[in-house]
């Protein structure tokens, strides 16, 4: 009997707990992958990330959300009230929320632009927190905002490579949120992020005959075979739900 083209049994999986995504990925994100979750505003990136962390924490995995653009207090007020969310997870430290600006303050980073040393210091500090707290799931929301401060493509490359390598070695599965405009080609602001990530999940808006549908597509995931089809997404209190995008209708414009 011929060997299968790809074997999905080789890598341990981080079961996201979002059933449809685990199904698309044939069992979950390969453990230790750094995945870019890319999309324009209001497409569900943050909700997917929060569910990923909450499901992980419920499964006993320490989970950390690093917020760059929005204070976590405000974020938590606006997040979907998931039925499965348990305050105990936060009290027990299984689920942690940290504002990255506080880390900048601690590190004495007060300039808008990060130089080479500060970029490395930031990557090492995040890696240190992951190691110290035994974090198994990390979300950086958003990597775009961090990259805005790093600015230089070379330094961005160095930051992402350093962070990705260390986190992968620690078995930490990471989601990096990438903010893009709906009109943009590519999946990241600087281009470097998508090239270095192990996986790219794209969320978007699809307009079809005047209806606006939220969509999700996994375009890349190292370490597993997966569907590359587009799905329609719903953000509900029981979590993120997906169904296949129907293809029978005429599509006015892509998303």
């Amino acid at each position: 009997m011929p060997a299968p083209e790809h074997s999905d049994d080789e890598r341990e999986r981080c079961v996201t707990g979002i059933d449809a995504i685990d199904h698309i990925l044939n069992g979950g994100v390969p453990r230790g992958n750094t995945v870019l979750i890319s999309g324009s505003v209001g497409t569900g990136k943050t909700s997917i990330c929060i569910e990923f962390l909450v499901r992980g924490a419920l499964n006993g995995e320490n989970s950390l959300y690093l917020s760059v653009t929005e204070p976590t207090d405000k974020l938590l007020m606006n997040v979907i009230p998931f039925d499965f969310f348990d305050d105990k997870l936060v009290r027990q430290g299984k689920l942690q929320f940290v504002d990255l600006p506080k880390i900048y303050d601690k590190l004495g980073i007060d300039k808008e632009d990060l130089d080479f040393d500060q970029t490395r210091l930031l990557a090492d500090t995040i890696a240190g927190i992951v190691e110290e707290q035994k974090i198994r799931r990390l979300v950086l929301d958003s990597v775009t905002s961090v990259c805005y401060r790093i600015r230089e493509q070379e330094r961005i490359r160095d930051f992402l490579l350093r962070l990705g390598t260390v986190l992968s070695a620690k078995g930490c599965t990471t989601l990096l949120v990438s903010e893009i405009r709906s009109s943009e080609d590519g999946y990241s602001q600087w281009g470097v992020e998508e090239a270095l990530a192990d996986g790219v999940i794209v969320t978007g808006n699809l307009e079809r005959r005047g209806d606006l549908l939220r969509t999700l597509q996994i375009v890349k995931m190292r370490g597993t075979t997966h569907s590359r089809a587009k799905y329609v997404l719903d953000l509900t209190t029981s979590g993120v739900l997906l169904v296949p995008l129907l293809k029978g209708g005429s599509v006015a414009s892509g998303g």
Partner: protein
Amino acid sequence: MAVEVSITSEIAEKLRALPDSSAVALHLKSDQYFDAIQGMLDRFAMKKDLEVVYVTSTIPSQSIINALEVLEIPMDHIWFVDCVSQIMMSQAKRHPHAIIVESPTMLENIMLKVEFLIRGHPDRNALVVLDSINSLAIHNNTKILSEFLHILVNHLRSRGAYTVIFSMREYETDEIRNMLVLVSDDSIELGK
């Protein structure tokens, strides 16, 4: 009155005779509409202890809820996915058992809301009612509607849910009949 009794009993009996997880095309006339609903919900779903997800694209959910109240059918295990109220710009106040889909053209969102409601009751088997294929056909072309039915029915079958698809005889076309034959395990012709 004798006719009404026979329609409600007929549909309940025919549904009871089907194996679990069946998908059924229910062909009926407009004047049998509320009797069919009563038979299906009161005499079949309640007796079988099913959670009902009722997708309405024909009339607003509130109209059906009003009828259920008159018929004294309890709403505890009946949920609506309402695809018409929003496009009709009707009433701002929604019944707590009704979820709105913006338009009957958003077929994926109908599937998502059905899934959401089924997930909310993991311990109970479900009956999903699609009312009706004819009204969905007003807003969607045959190709996308066939694809929708194919995915939805197979998904519900895999979840062990019953599916009943209403088709009003007065508005049936060959295309609709063919579509229903393709996805249904059985067909019930009321009053025949």
